[in-house]
């Protein structure tokens, strides 16, 4: 009977070990972490830009003065950029009538590439093209995606390195709070 008990204990132990599977290579999703935006202590001025959109219309940072802006830097070949796009579209639906601007600055790709990409991954808000990669160099960015939140006076208030679920009201409320009453 003792042998049976020992075997039973061994079985339970083996079962527990087998069940304790390590995590498989995870996606870059951040859903397991409570999300936040990182405040920039020195609140630097956002660099001025002159970039065209998909219809060859020129956009400048100054065009958006007086509104909080969410500026996302991305590329079509960047998996976490693709992953956060649907949540950015949903966020845009929530804030587009609230006096908040949202821009997606593509880095290093041409209009045709982005056009082909948007067939599979529609982007509902303004896409700007930094094809030469000159504009991104003016921003404190080390990887894609990186997103900044600019206040109505053109200062960078928050940054997010890597993707976020942007339709989370916890994040959007931080942007809404920057609006001038």
């Amino acid at each position: 009977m003792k042998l049976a008990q020992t075997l039973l204990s061994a079985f339970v132990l083996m079962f527990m070990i087998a069940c304790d599977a390590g995590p498989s290579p995870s996606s870059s999703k951040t859903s397991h972490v409570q999300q936040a935006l990182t405040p920039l202590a020195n609140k630097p001025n956002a660099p001025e830009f002159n970039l065209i959109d998909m219809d060859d219309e020129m956009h400048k940072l100054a065009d958006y003065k007086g509104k909080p802006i969410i500026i996302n830097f991305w590329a079509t070949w960047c998996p976490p950029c693709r992953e956060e796009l649907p949540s950015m579209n949903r966020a845009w639906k929530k804030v587009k009538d609230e006096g908040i601007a949202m821009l997606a600055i593509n880095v290093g790709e041409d209009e045709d590439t982005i056009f082909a990409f948007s067939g599979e991954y529609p982007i509902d808000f303004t896409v700007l093209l930094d094809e030469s990669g000159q504009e991104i160099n003016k921003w404190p960015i080390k990887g894609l995606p990186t997103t900044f939140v600019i206040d109505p006076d053109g200062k960078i208030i928050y940054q997010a390195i890597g993707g976020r679920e942007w339709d989370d009201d916890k994040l959007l409320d931080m942007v809404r709070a920057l609006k001038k009453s």
Partner: protein
Amino acid sequence: MIINYKSKKMNQKVVLLICSIMTFSFFVVSSTLKADEIKQNVELNIVKTVNKETQLSAWKLSKGNFQLELIQRSPEQTRSFFQGRGFSSKVANDIATSCVFQTIGRNTEADNKTDSVSVDLSEWRIAVADNKDKSAQAIKLKEDWNKEWKGAKVSVASRIAFRWATYPSEQSFEPGGDFNWGMISMGPKPDTTFDLHVFWKQGDKKHDAWIRNMQCPKDF
């Protein structure tokens, strides 16, 4: 005596039954895992998995706020990526066969009041098993590649793609979801086995860990 004999018989049956259940259950549970776990180093929390579809291996290290994933990229996958972005076949092949890993580093802590995590890839070292003097060597950073291409015909567009598709040599991750991803080239030839010595900081405190028996992806 008869009772004793019956009891012994009974014991044997119970043992046989338990053994059968153990074997069966172990195989059932093991085979239903999403990925095949090969090795788990509990102390350092390093887990190796193999993707059943691609057969590519991945290593995941978790300690404190820091989580690091290193996923093999097949040379074919990397070659096509860079050729598709204007690199010559030679340069694309040089990168592809330099032991490239898709790397994701993140700060897993949600609380904004906790420490940031930072990595400096210039501190990372690899030790190759067949290296006679067993000395650790630095990994190949994006800056090293750029030096190699000085004067070479690598277009601006290709350099932009390379810059943003590769892992930054230095980066800090704040709590609340910060992470970054990108390719890291460890350096050795395809199918080489090596140990990787990883360094990172959580706040001001420096940490390190060895990830043993990593393999450069094979070039089929």
